[in-house]
């Protein structure tokens, strides 16, 4: 083995450890009994292996309901974000209007404002609208951080597409809308998929807004529900918490695995052949 190859292998192993060990640790704990966690026995592999944490989470808490709430919210936010970010990204990248560059910069600045600064004013607005304690409050507020990020992402994608394709469509008699829908959006699909995955991930994992804007137990999202139910003062139900983390990470993993090929192949397909 050459030195370069050995270096690459070591690097890969180190990278895999950094990425996979936390997931393995979470999964490992979720299959442990109370005693194994408490006494730090069977540290690396659960012996005996138990599904008790999963069954308890599913049957003794409202976890299925929280999961559904997270899914409804994340899907709705992703759909809203995809539409708004696609239109916004296209407009900033392709249309000429005064202040275009300023708007583009402002979008980035908006994304950089920490949600921890915004949750109180946003809660106030939602309370005025009578929209708190509904999933709609989350569906309306999450785009405040997903849309700026995804728009910024899509500006780059739209800018990278050749102007000639759109101009050819316009010369052939297509309206601007038709050129966007029939020519540019299909070409930008990899970028749109990537931004949709980001929007879904951000919505799925969101905690602070969900905690503040929604109080009834039946409307909690998974992140808040698990935390509320499985941490009781100085008693942490580690097995259940880890089981919740495992189940919660599945949709994200599936989304990334499922769309990764599409994303990569779409990116390399090229529009100017």
């Amino acid at each position, binding site marked *: 083995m050459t030195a370069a190859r050995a270096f690459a292998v070591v690097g890969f192993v180190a990278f895999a450890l950094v990425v996979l060990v936390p997931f393995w640790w979470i999964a490992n704990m979720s299959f442990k009994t109370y005693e194994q966690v408490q006494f730090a026995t069977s540290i690396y592999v659960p012996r005996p292996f138990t599904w008790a944490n999963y069954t308890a989470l599913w049957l003794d808490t409202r976890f299925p309901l929280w999961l559904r709430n997270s899914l409804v919210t994340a899907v709705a936010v992703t759909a809203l974000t995809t539409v708004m970010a696609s239109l916004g990204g296209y407009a900033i990248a392709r249309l000429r209007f005064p202040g275009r560059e300023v708007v583009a910069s402002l979008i980035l600045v908006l994304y950089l404002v920490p949600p921890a600064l915004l*949750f109180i004013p946003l*809660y106030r607005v939602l309370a005025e609208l009578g929209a708190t304690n509904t999933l709609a409050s989350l569906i309306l507020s999450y785009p405040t951080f997903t849309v700026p990020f995804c728009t910024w992402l899509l500006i780059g994608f739209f800018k990278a597409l050749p102007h000639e394709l759109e101009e050819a469509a316009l010369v052939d008699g297509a309206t601007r809308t038709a050129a966007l829908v029939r020519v540019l959006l299909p070409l930008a699909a990899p970028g749109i998929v990537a931004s949709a995955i980001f929007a879904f991930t951000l919505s799925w994992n969101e905690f602070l807004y969900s905690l*503040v804007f929604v109080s009834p137990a039946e409307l909690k999202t998974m992140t808040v529900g698990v*935390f509320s139910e499985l941490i*009781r003062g100085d*008693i942490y139900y580690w097995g259940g918490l880890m089981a919740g983390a495992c189940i919660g990470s599945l949709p994200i993993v599936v989304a990334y695995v499922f769309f990764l090929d599409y994303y990569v192949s779409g990116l390399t397909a090229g529009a100017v052949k």
Partner: protein
Amino acid sequence: MVNRRQFLRVTAGGAASVVMAGGVPATAQTRELTFLTIASFVPETDKELKRQFEEWGAKNKVKVRLDIIAHLQLVTKKASEVQARSGHDLTALGPGLGDADLYFDHLVDLNDVAADVAPKNGGWMNPNDYLIRGKWKLLPWWMPPFPMAVRTDLLEQIGEKNPDTWEDWLRIGKKGKAIGHPFGTALGHSGDANVTLLSIMWSYGASYVAKDGKTVAINSKETRQAMEFVKRLYTEAMDPEVLAWDDASNNRCLNAGKCIAIHNPISAFESAKRDKVVIPGTQREIAEVIDHVNTPRGPVDRRTTTGYWCVGIWNFAKNVDLAKDFLRYHFQPENQAKWVDAGHGFNMPFLTNLTKHPVYKSDKQYRFIPEVAKVTVPPSWPGPTTASSQQVLDLYILPDMFAQYATGKMTVDQAIAWAEKEMQEIFAGRKRKF
């Protein structure tokens, strides 16, 4: 083709309908009372509270909603509800009385409810402690008294019995550590660390704020004595891991069979009993060999503190009178008795008669809890509770001060000077009222 005006009309209408879907305030149609509280350390307590709330709602034809969150989430919820002046009617406050000072202008006066509740329950235990700027801005609800939890089998093994003073516990910790079972108390950023270190400070006659509630009193020879003791406790009787402990760590240490003793409410014992935790390497349940004894005394005093969990009514609540009515109902002696029973004695009310509740005689483990309650004072003792005194605890200045000296990173004078400066800035900042 849809023109721009039509597009705006349709999208604005759609957005409005999304916002309003399910969002029409229920108050327009029915009376609804909402209550935000924290997930109890003993889950049966929540069930009993819910039962009482629903029973009261049915009797009064009021729709009720009890929302339960983890106690760590309460700060964020309170802040957002106060800023928006919208949210629940009743709210849990705590874990200190400081909320009542911090949110003084946002809480309803409860003088009338406090006066109604007291005579039926033998009076409040220490009513002057609960007044904020001379008013009842909250009702003290429950506290988890802090006894000392100890492994009796290990105590026997090292030839010790009836420990009562902090010096006794230091000696026991040293002997325990020698056989692999150290004493355990947090020296990191945790509520338990605040409680235990305050207990030690008071036992030496020290305090961090004077009786006037304004003067920082940390720089004293009594504080130095307390710090010398904690340094010995840390170096001779504990493991360094206590510097990184959170509130769950000491429970884990006791129930994992490692610690010989911890200063903690009975939650560790309760969870060990419920989960039938056994001593490692044996089939014997650890709950059988855990005992609880009085919080230790020192050369000057025997005193401790704990989380003062309280309940209040926001002055922006839609149903203040209904909220007061529910509090009167919940604080009826029979309802309080059922609620304490459900909590297995973990949730002790601040009402004199409830210290005589049968639950404290139902298990020998609980025998010292009423005794501990008698010597339990607010953390700012001997001063009144203020937002500043609460902030000192919230920033964990005391654990940091003790840890800096115990670990040798600062001299005792440096650590005290640092803490004094931090505290003075807090008290001065609150005075400025930004």
